[in-house]
């Protein structure tokens, strides 16, 4: 299903942090949203989710860090069942074993509260919650910043496979141009609350058009790039 939104905007304390923005997302498209800190990436992610949700679409969200996703007073099992209920399943009826094994958190004690798990495990638990039902879109906000490189790579690969298997579109919000280049087919560059460039990943990396994109590409420090 193609997703199309327009007129997304956001202000905070009278300041515009996201100028009116439209976005088209093709079925199964993998978009990376890149830009400097404060360019409005996460904000675009949030208003996009709220907009699509209000239209009855299924959108899953993985916030930047587990502290923004899990209540420290509630057990992991509680979070899982709560999410199942919110998605319309009976608590305990979904297949969490496969997901947990794939994300290597099958040994985590679900009776425990989030802080008894490592941050990396918490983050993968949050990703597992996002994958409970096949959503139309998954928005991943810096999903790997809490993970070590090996787990991060495995998690990103798993998400990529999941996307193909379920026809789910994905938006990856990141500072990490290397990560974006490795996974996403489309790059959206943001600057000062606006989308300034949108093109295929290879195109942006080869021929950045705007200053924002040029400086991002120029300052890349990653060795392995597809171009």
């Amino acid at each position, binding site marked *: 299903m193609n997703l199309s939104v327009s007129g997304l905007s956001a202000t905070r304390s009278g300041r515009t942090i996201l100028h009116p923005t439209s976005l088209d997302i093709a079925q199964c498209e993998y978009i990376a949203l890149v830009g400097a800190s404060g360019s409005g990436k996460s904000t675009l992610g949030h208003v996009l989710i709220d907009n699509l949700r209000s239209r009855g679409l299924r959108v899953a969200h993985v916030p930047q860090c587990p502290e923004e996703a899990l209540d420290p007073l509630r057990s992991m099992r509680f979070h899982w069942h709560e*999410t199942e209920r919110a998605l319309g399943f009976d608590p305990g009826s979904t297949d969490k074993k496969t997901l947990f094994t794939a994300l290597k958190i099958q040994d985590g004690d679900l009776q425990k509260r989030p802080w008894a798990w490592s941050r990396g495990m918490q983050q993968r638990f949050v990703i597992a919650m996002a994958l409970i039902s096949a959503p139309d879109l998954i928005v991943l906000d810096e999903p790997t910043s809490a993970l070590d490189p090996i787990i991060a790579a495995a998690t990103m690969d798993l998400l990529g496979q999941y996307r193909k298997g379920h026809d789910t579109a994905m938006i990856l919000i990141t500072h990490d141009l290397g990560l974006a280049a490795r996974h996403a087919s489309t790059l959206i560059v943001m600057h000062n609350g606006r989308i300034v460039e949108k093109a295929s990943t290879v195109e942006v990396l080869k021929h950045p058009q705007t200053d924002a994109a040029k400086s991002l590409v120029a300052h890349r420090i990653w060795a392995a790039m597809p171009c």
Partner: protein
Amino acid sequence: MITSLIGLILRAAVVLAGTALITFTLLWNAPGDPAQAIAMARFDALLTQDIINQVREEAGLDAGFWTAFITWVGPLLTLDFGQSSVTGRDVWPDLLTAIGYVTPLAVGGLAIGLALSFSLAIVATRRPGGLLDRFAIAVASLGTAIPAYWLGLLLILLFAVHLAWLPAMGARTPSHIILPALTLGLGVAASLTRIIRSGILEARDQPFLSAIRRRGVSPKDISRDHIAPHAAIPVVTVFGLELAFLLEGVVMVEVIFGRPGLGTFLVNAIEARDFPQVQAVVVLTALIFVTVNLIIDVIYRIIDPRIGGRNA
């Protein structure tokens, strides 16, 4: 959990032992001759030195400090408070009568306080900064500023004198409890409202709530499952202090409304220098206070086990 529970109980025991020792020391060293006061309370007549000495011997006041302390503390461990040094009667039955009067008053005051403060705080936090919120804060501030003895007198003036709806003095009928419980409850409500209100507002600011909302959890479920437990932590904390306020307030309110009870019992005992009675009230109060705080500590650890981990 078990280890921290044992730690908590040990701590409670130390507090109780300290209370017993300090109370006893203070009374033992209080100025004036207790034997003379007791003799006066007993005989109410001209006293000779012989009579005073005889009383001193009977009340065990001629023994050394530690002997007297141990004589008192030993039976106390089995909740035997000994005999009144004035009347010679057991302290416990008289104390029990006082407790019988004070319990409904304290429970009633607490119930009124909790009901009022929760409803006020919930109404106030519907729209923070709105008219209702400001009204609730104003009422709570006013309530904190008004002392119980003044509020009690105002209530008597309004409901007993002008409207003549309710009785003011004594404790003969159940309706006699309404005005004193209201006085006590309004004081409790005033301080609790502010705590519950700020607890709810703070809980609503938790960083994970918007992610949970985006997972599709309904606002009602979020309030019940996430906001309420976070808001409960400061409320539970203050509840222990509130109990101290309640025990203190009860004494004052009893005097204002001329009710028999713990306050009257204590004041009479102090005037007569009836040490066993005074000590019994102090130890019992400390026991209640320590027990409630022990329960609060356990509730804490159930809501948020990290608290136990840090303290243990």
